[in-house]
């Protein structure tokens, strides 16, 4: 397996009491898979993602990527943050070049790579702007271009489109799906939007809270282009709804 999470446990102390954010979570991910971590707020999605990305240490259990134990973040596995994480004092172009500077890519080549990825995310002509001169959706595109520019093996995304309006979000979902197919990256994507997960994922990891755990893993049997209104799409979506007990009778009962 490419990514192996074995019996991951993570506890936090909250107001003196111990809180289990991850309770014996095990998960295997293949190279090139698009995985969505889906679940209600507080179920440990971010905790799991940050642990795999190397930002957070587990209390017990292990995480391996390509056979190597994860101990810290690596430039080979890029995280795209919800609030974009762009450096506001750098232009769009300089933001995209950030990781290339670490990799000691010569200046000329840096420009070319930045231009290539800005084009890929549809932002040519915005090179010299500063992040605050862009919309939220454009900023997230810059952040994606910056991540892709270092040619990472894995891309981690923590609710990357959470702050965007529905239409921009759909556009970016289309784009990220295309990019992931084209560049053949392994992507782990956190969301609490069921449709988003169904639209993007090869497999959806459904998580539950208190303690944070995996409830089930749903394979999405949709290939190629995904139509949000097709019967297949709605069928998968309904299956996920059921997992959360949010459909039909039970949902109504819940409201009453």
């Amino acid at each position, binding site marked *: 397996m490419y990514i192996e999470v074995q019996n991951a446990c993570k506890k936090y102390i909250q107001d003196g009491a111990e809180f289990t954010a991850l309770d014996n979570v095990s998960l295997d991910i293949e190279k090139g898979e698009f995985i969505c971590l889906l679940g209600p707020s507080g179920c440990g999605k971010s905790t799991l993602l940050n642990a795999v990305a190397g*930002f957070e240490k587990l209390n017990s259990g292990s995480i391996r990527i390509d056979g190597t134990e994860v101990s810290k973040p690596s430039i080979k596995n890029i995280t795209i943050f919800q609030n974009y*994480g762009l450096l506001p004092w750098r232009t769009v172009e300089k933001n995209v070049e950030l990781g290339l500077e670490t990799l000691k890519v010569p200046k000329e080549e840096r420009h070319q790579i930045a231009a290539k990825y800005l084009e890929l995310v549809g932002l040519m002509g915005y090179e010299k702007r500063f992040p605050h001169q862009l919309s939220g959706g454009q900023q997230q595109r810059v952040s994606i271009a910056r991540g892709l520019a270092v040619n990472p093996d894995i891309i981690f995304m923590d609710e990357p489109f959470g702050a965007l309006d529905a239409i921009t979000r759909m556009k970016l979902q289309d784009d990220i799906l295309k990019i992931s197919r084209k560049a053949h990256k392994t992507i782990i994507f956190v969301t609490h939007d069921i449709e988003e997960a169904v639209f993007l994922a090869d497999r959806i990891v459904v998580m539950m809270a208190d303690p944070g755990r995996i409830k089930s893993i749903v394979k999405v049997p949709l290939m190629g282009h995904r139509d949000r209104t097709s019967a297949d799409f709605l069928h998968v979506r309904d299956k996920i709804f059921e997992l959360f007990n949010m459909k039909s009778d039970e949902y109504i009962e819940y409201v009453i």
Partner: protein
Amino acid sequence: MRKLREVKNVVVSLIVFVLLWQILFITSDFNENLFPSPYMALQALVETVTKGVLFTNILTSLYRFLIGYLASIIVAVALGLVLGQLPGVFQYINPVVQLIRPISPTAWMPFIVLLFGIGDVPAIVIIFIAAFFPVLLSTVTAVRNINPVYLKVSQNFAISQPELTWKVILPAAFPQIASGIHLALGSAWIFLVAGEMVGAQSGLGYQIIDARNNIRADILLATIIVIGVIGIILDGLIKVIERRILAAWGGQV
């Protein structure tokens, strides 16, 4: 239109000030050698200008000021950038800083004169001290308050020291550092005059002492006004520089 109104405000304010001064001059019964009128102060100003002493003293003071202030900023910001990233070390240094900080820089004056004698050095040292602590503390605070996402991004893109400090921490902390530098300018200028009154034989502070020794209250007041005006100009300059840097670094100005 707004510029015009601002200019009008300044003019009105100055006229009122000069009028009050004139009224005080007429109504009070101080000797006019001890409490001169605005016009007498103006004449004294012209006198110092034509004799060339004012210009020389301004240059001397500005020279000391620039050296002391710039050296202080550079050392304080550099130290602040380091200490801000080493909270474990700073917690041992902070008590000493807190002990020294509330001491007025003038209290150091006799000591500094004993060590360095009379001349440029005491004034420079006192400016250094005056600017040092506000800049150091605002830098440390600024570094600690950096949005953690910038640090996560740096970690992810494997940016290590010293690049981390230059590329990320300094620009991220700059707005708050700049306000510390700006604040320090005011107190540094204030203490320059104090320093020159005790530790120097030249400069604007000395010009005040010299005027007092010669019982020339008119020159004394003229010098005070010059000091105030230069203070305003320096403040305006630093504002411009601050804004330039912020703009170059993409800040919303």
